[in-house]
Each structure stands twice: as C-alpha cells, then as structure tokens.
C-alpha cells in the first residue's frame, strides 16, 4: 500500500506484546478484593446454616423478643424524630431568610461531630440524680429524693432522644440538598397556578424531596442499628449489645454470629429502602434549569419561631453537651498530663492512620480498576466491596474474628505438624485484624469521594497526556497525582475520624489492653466516672468537627445556581 514508506520496525521500541499475553490484573484484583471484603458478611450469613445450639435456644426463648422489640421501637422513634428535626430546619434554612440563618446553615450539622454514645453519657451526667439539673431543682424547691418524678435518661425513650439529636443531620443534609437542587421552575409553576409559598412547599417541594428524605432516614436508621455504646450504657438491649454479651459474656461465638445474621436482616431492609430512594431521586429531578432560589424573608414572630426551630437541635445536639464536656474537662484538667492519656492518643492515632492508609489504598486501587476495566464484573465487585458502610461494626467484628480464629488454629496446627512448633495466634487480637475490620466498614466512606475525584479526570485527559509524550507512569505522576491529591487528603481525614469515633468493632477486636479514646470513654462511663470520661470524649468531638467543617465547605462550594452568578 505505502510502497514509498519502508518500515524500519527494528528502530521502533517494541512496547506492547500480543493480546494473548495480556492479563487482566485490574479485573482480578477487584474480584479478589471484593471477595475478601465480603468474607465477614458471608461468615455471618453462613452461620445460619450452622447447627443452632442450646445457647441459641436459650437466647431465642429469653432475650431475642426483647432485642427485636427494642430495635423496632428505636427505629420507629428515631425515624420519626429525625424527620421532625431534619426536614423543617432544612426548609427554613434553604427557602427563608431570618437573622442567623447563614450560621444555622452549617451549625445544623454540628451534632454529627460526636458519636451518639458521647452525647448519651453527657446527658446522663447532666440529668441523673447527682447531676447539675436535679441538684439545682432540689436546691431551688427544697425537694429531697423521692419528692418528685424526673424522667430517666437511661431508658428506651432516652436512647431515642439521644440518637435523634445526633442522627437528624443526615435527613437535614439530604433534604437540604434536595430543596437546593429542585428547579425553581417547579416552585414558580406552582406559584403561577395559584398556590401560596406554604402550599407550594406541601404540594410540590416536599413530594419532590421525599426520596431524599427517605434516604436520610435510612442512613439515620443504619446508624441506629449500628449503635452499641448508647444502648449498652442505657441498658436498652438490642442486637449489638446481645452480640457483645453472647460473644464475650456467654462465650458462644456461633450464637453471636447468628444474632448478627438476624441484625443483618434489619440492615438489609433499611439498605433496600435507601437504594430505592436513590433510584427514585433520578426521576424526581424536574429540570436542569437552576437559578438562585427565591427566598422568603421572615419577620417578627415568624422569624423568632424559625430561629427557635433551628436553634433547638443545634443547642441540644451540640452546644449543651459540648459545654458540659468542656466544664468537666476543666474540672479534671490534671488528667490531660497523665501519661496514660498520651498513650491513649498515640494508640488512637496508630489505629486511625493504619485504617485510613489501608482503606484509601484499597479505595484508590478499586476506583482505578473500575475506571480501566469498567466491566459488569468489576462494577459488581466494587458494589459488593462498598456494602460495608451499612454493616454494623459489631457484625463486622464477629464476622472477622471467627475466620481469624479458624485460620490461626489451622496455621498453628499445620506448623506443629510440619515443624513441631506452634505459631500461636497470628491474626486474632492483632492490629491487622482490627485494621481489616475498618477497611470493611469504611471502604465506602473512602471509595465514593475518590471515585468522584477520579471521575473529574476525563479519559481524554489521559489521552491528551499520552499524545503529548507522557508515558502511562508519567501520566499518573503529572496528571493524576496532582489532581487526586485533594480528594485523597480529604478522604483520609474522613476515614481517620470515623476510625477514631468507632467503638464496637474496636472493643471486640483490639489487642489486649490496647485502649483508644473511644474505648477509654466507654470504660469510664461504664464505671460511672462520667466526669473523667469528659477529656477523651471532648477530644473525640473536637476531632469529629473537622469533617463537619469540610462538609460545610463542600456544600457552600457546590450549590447549583450560584456557579454562574
């Protein structure tokens, strides 16, 4: 064909081999990794196939109905509570103007900073018999013990209140995003058709935002089902406390797994709800026409009511407990100098850094597998691997512990057989196992932002770099690394904080006497030394504020309709 063009093949670098030699490294990695991460879930579900022991029969006859009832009441109570706190605040902050609204926009997510158990301990400390509230009441009215009735925080109702106060921001965030994303068109159409602002809210905005609200409720319910610290301390028996007691107290690992399996049924139900809401949100997008939303200025009584509605959850979800913790911390300031506290800090950091690094590395590799080999198989693997966010920490823990014990015993026996020397426990009770648990639990936290970050690097940018003379490695260094640095760093902070707040998996899996801030907080609270728990609690809350700030900044940046202004 091109006779004038001799083809000096030898002078060209032979860079790629034939097709047959190419091995789909990415696809294999994604599938192997997803299988590894799925192990805990498979073990837990598989336990239902194991023989049900006497211990199980005993559990089923005595405590199981209570676990179910408590879980259902918790879900109902928290579900209702988070809607009542989250939706009106989201609407007021998005659609109306009153003094302080700019502050409430971000302040309303502050309660996310602290884990529920910290808020639970704090309110118990404030409201129990010797706490400041009852002491003041007695001093003012001259009552003494038994003269008056005072609600007991440590009850099912108390747990519902605490979890509502901590988890409502999920509904607030998603509902607010839905209100912001709604096209003005739909609202304006409603107004031109003769509806008032409030009628438009009820008949247009609320139905359009319903999938988002359901999604927020589902997230709050997942957290409710995962909670261990609050219900354990409040004496409200649920599946997580049951798993803990059956495993450590009764010493029946299989029965604990079976309890975990039943808890998973609840989790999957909520997960389905969440997935459904995501699907619906696609159809509830009205039009792509965005403009700055019209806002209604509020005055007088109305502004005052709006202010109170928004201030209530911020005050009781964050300000009051944070202030109490601060006061108690100052009263026990000497503890900060205690070498034991420094040990706590360094232990916590070791776990957090290890968990974050492992999780991020896995998330980056998984995101690249999805980018480079977007096959059905890899997609399914990625989905499978990121399901862990819905699985309670206690379930992940027992799902990992038991295979670790089996594997350890097998290696030990094999080593004895081969070398005559046992290896002891290689995995169980080591940091490796704990960090693997974090990986399973928090992979989705890392994967979603990293995948989004990678999505901003279009495939034609790769092509542009290659055509301009950059090798694949150079493309990675010169284009991907600088563009990904930001999202990797942000994600690392998110995972770091999640690990620091995590309680049940750490409690069940940590090496002997390896205490972290969360563990010490839990132990001090269990010993009724609430004031001493203030310092580690406050540290957790302070750390927890960092992602909240990142989140508020991200929200402020990403508001549609403002970009073009």
């Amino acid at each position, binding site marked *: *064909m*091109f*006779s*004038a*063009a*001799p*083809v*000096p*093949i030898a*002078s*060209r*670098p*032979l*860079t*790629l081999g*034939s097709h047959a030699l190419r091995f789909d490294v990415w696809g294999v990695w994604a599938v192997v990794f997803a299988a590894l991460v799925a192990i805990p879930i498979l073990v837990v579900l598989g336990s239902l196939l194991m023989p049900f022991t006497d211990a199980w029969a005993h559990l089923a006859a005595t405590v199981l109905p209570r676990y179910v009832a408590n879980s259902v009441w918790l879900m109902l109570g928290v579900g209702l509570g988070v809607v009542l706190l989250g939706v009106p605040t989201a609407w007021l902050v998005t659609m109306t103007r009153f003094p302080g609204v700019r502050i409430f926009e971000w302040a309303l997510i502050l309660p996310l900073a602290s884990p529920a158990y910290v808020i639970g301990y704090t309110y118990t400390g404030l409201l129990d018999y010797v706490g400041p509230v009852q002491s003041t009441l007695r001093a003012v009215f001259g009552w003494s013990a038994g003269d008056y009735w005072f609600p007991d925080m440590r009850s099912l109702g108390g747990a519902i209140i605490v979890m509502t106060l901590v988890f409502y921001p999920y509904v607030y965030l998603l509902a607010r995003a839905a209100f912001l994303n709604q096209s003005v068109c739909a609202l304006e159409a409603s107004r031109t058709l003769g509806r008032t602002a409030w009628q438009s809210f009820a008949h247009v905005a609320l139905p359009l935002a319903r999938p988002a609200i359901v999604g927020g409720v589902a997230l709050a319910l997942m957290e409710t089902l995962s909670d261990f610290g609050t219900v354990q301390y409040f004496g409200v028996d649920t599946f997580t406390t049951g798993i803990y007691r059956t495993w450590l107290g009764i010493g029946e690992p299989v029965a604990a797994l079976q309890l975990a399996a039943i808890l998973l049924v609840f989790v999957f139900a909520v997960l389905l709800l969440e997935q459904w809401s995501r699907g619906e949100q696609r159809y509830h997008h009205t039009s792509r026409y965005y403009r700055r939303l019209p806002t209604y200025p509020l005055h007088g009584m109305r502004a005052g009511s709006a202010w109170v509605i928004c201030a209530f959850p911020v005050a009781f979800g964050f300000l009051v407990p944070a202030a109490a913790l601060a006061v108690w911390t100052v009263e026990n300031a000497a503890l900060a100098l205690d070498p034991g506290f420094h040990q706590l800090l360094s232990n916590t950091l070791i776990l957090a850094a290890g968990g974050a690094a492992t999780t991020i590395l896995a998330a980056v590799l998984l995101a690249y597998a999805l980018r480079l080999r977007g096959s059905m198989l890899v997609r399914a693997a990625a989905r499978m691997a990121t399901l862990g966010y819905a699985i309670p920490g206690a379930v992940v823990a027992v799902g990992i512990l038991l295979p670790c014990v089996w594997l350890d015993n097998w290696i030990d026996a094999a080593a004895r057989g081969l070398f005559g020397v046992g290896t002891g426990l290689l995995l169980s009770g080591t940091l490796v196992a704990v960090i693997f648990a974090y990986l399973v639990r928090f992979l989705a936290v890392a994967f979603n932002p990293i995948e989004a970050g990678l999505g*901003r690097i*279009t495939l*034609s*940018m790769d*092509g*542009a*770099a*290659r*055509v*301009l*003379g*950059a*090798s694949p490695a*150079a493309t990675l260094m*010169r*284009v991907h690394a*600088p*563009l990904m640095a930001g999202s990797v760093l942000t994600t690392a902070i998110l995972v770091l904080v999640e690990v620091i707040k995590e309680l049940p998996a750490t409690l069940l899996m940590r090496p002997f006497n390896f205490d972290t801030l969360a563990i010490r907080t839990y132990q001090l609270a269990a010993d009724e030394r609430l004031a001493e728990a203030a310092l580690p609690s406050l540290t957790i809350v302070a750390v927890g504020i960092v992602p909240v700030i990142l989140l508020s900044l991200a929200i402020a940046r990403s508001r549609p309709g403002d970009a073009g202004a």
Partner: protein
Amino acid sequence: MQPIALGIADVSHAYGERTVVRGVTLTVAPGELVCLVGPSGCGKTTLLRIAAGLEELQHGRVVIDGCAVAEPGYVVPPEARGVGFVFQDYALFPHLTVARNVAFGLHRLPAGERAARVRDVLSKVGMAEYAEAYPHQLSGGQQQRVALARALAPRPRVVLLDEPFSGLDTRLREQIRDDTLHVLKDSGAATLMVTHDPEEAMFMADRLAVMRAGRIEQEGTPVDIYTRPATAFVASFFGQLNELVGVVRGGAVYTPFGAVATPGLGDGTTVDVLIRPEGLRLSAADSGVSSAVAAQVMTARLLGRSSWIHLRLLTGDAAWGEGHVGHFHFHARVPGRYLPREGEILQVGLDPTQAFVFPAKDAR
C-alpha cells in the same frame, strides 16, 4: 509520488461484537487538511483514536511520516508518535495554568526554549495574555484555542482534531474555525479532522472523506463531492434534497421539471432522483421558459443569505410518465431575498447539474 505524513491502510475495528470501522484506507499529505465527515456513530472518531494510538489497532496498519506505527503485534505508544490531538472536550489539565498546559508536551526542551515556544504558540492563537489563567477561568472558545496551542506546541507532523468546534455556540464557532484553519495551514502539519457537520467540513477541508457505517463512501475535494456525489447518501448528507422516484426510459428519467440523463443505467431501472433545492430555477409564470412547469407557492421564508420556497406542483399526471399523482411538495432555495406571495403561480425549471440519479434504494 507525494510523501505521506499520515497513512491509514485497511484498518478495521470492533468493540466486542460491534464492528465500527471496516477496512478504511486514507492518506494525508504534509500540509494537507483532510476532513473525515459522517453522521455520529459512523466510526470516524474511532479511526482518529487509532491513528493517535489511543485505541489499540486490531487490523490494518497506521503509518506516520513514512514509518509504520501500528501493525498487528507491533504498536508504537501514543507518546512516541509525535502527533497532536485536539479533543472534543478539550481535555485541558485543570490543575495547570494555560502556559503549563501548553508546556506539557515540551518537557524535553530546555526551560528557556520551552518558555519561548509557549509564548510563541499562545500568541499564534491569540491567548498570550491568558498564560497564567487556569482552564476553568476561560470561556469555551478560549479553552478551544488553548487546546489547539497545546497540540501544536511540540510541532507535531500530524495533527488530529476530534469535533473541535462542537462545544461552541454558532457565532463563536465560525470565528474560531476560521482562526483554526489559518493556524493549522501555517503550521504545515498534516491534519485529519473529524466532524459531523458537512458545512464545517467543506469550510475546513482541502479534501473530504465521507464515512458511513464504518466505510469511506466517497473521497475527494469538496467541489467533487458536492457536485458529483457517488451515492445517494453522500448527496443527501450535504443538504436537504427533493426526492423523486422514476424509471429509466431511453437513457433518461423524466421528472416534472424535465428529463435527467442516466448514463450507465439500463432501461426499466427504477431510480431515485435527488434534486438540490438550488437546482430548481424559479421564474415568473409568463416568462415562457420552455422546459418549465407551473407550481404554486405555499409559503416563502427568508433564511438570511438565501430564501426558502415551499412549492406545490400543479402539473397533471402526463409529466410523470409513470402515472404518479401530482401535488408534490418541493423546496427551492434562491440566493438573496426572494419572497413570492403565498398562492402565486411560478414557472419551475431544472438545473441538471444539481440533479443526481441513483438506482432506487430497494433495488440496491
């Protein structure tokens, strides 16, 4: 023999079961601008990506500057091919300034030369004063200029452009493609540009290759292709046509507007007759043009440079030969402002160079 800057020989490509390129052969000479034009999904972008090495070659051969860069079992990676590529979405690196985007492909030059080349190429596209801006601060047109500058900076022997103007609004597009044409011609590079817009292709190209369903349907100068389309598809791709069906009788097919010669088609062949709107000559009813027929104006619109007239034929069956019914709806394009009243009767004549005859679709 003219040297070949870019040669594509018998290239085929499939995504799984779906074959998108079927044995395409195409060459581009140094300094020549070839447009690959066709409807979306015809395989033109895939061909461009194969030439750049962004898509792995499956069958055939790619030659750049006289040397094979891709054959089955042998591939030169894109970074070693020395081609410039302008992407449809520009693909500017968002973390780099305009100057550093343009300098990206100049990493082998010493710093001083690199800076000079960046300044030089940015001023060529009129973006010198935006050197320190970031891509997100630029408008679409400015981003397109930077993408072009970045592709040209390493002085590639071959420049490939993938729908480079499709992201721009109409008025801006005309300005930018005019500028781009001159910058590309000045660079002396062999250019292969992909577009789905026939007018754009004719504006830019020294030579056109019309693609359809993975094959090149016709190759030639814009004048060739417009005046002598090889197939009905090529004829209709370059504008709306009046379509008629007829049967060859004595080396010609009879239309209401007169006979059209049908060289090479046997008597009795059913044929499609395609007449460009500008091939219908309109004149006043009493002008006495012999071959003309009468038509009634349905409506007339001024489109700017030309006028567009909807006509209804008044001729009876006789003119059709085969017993077609009249009252057909035709379009005529007349340069400038020509807006006859609705209902006015006009004489319609035919410019035979603007009428094309192909065997009927069902017969092929």
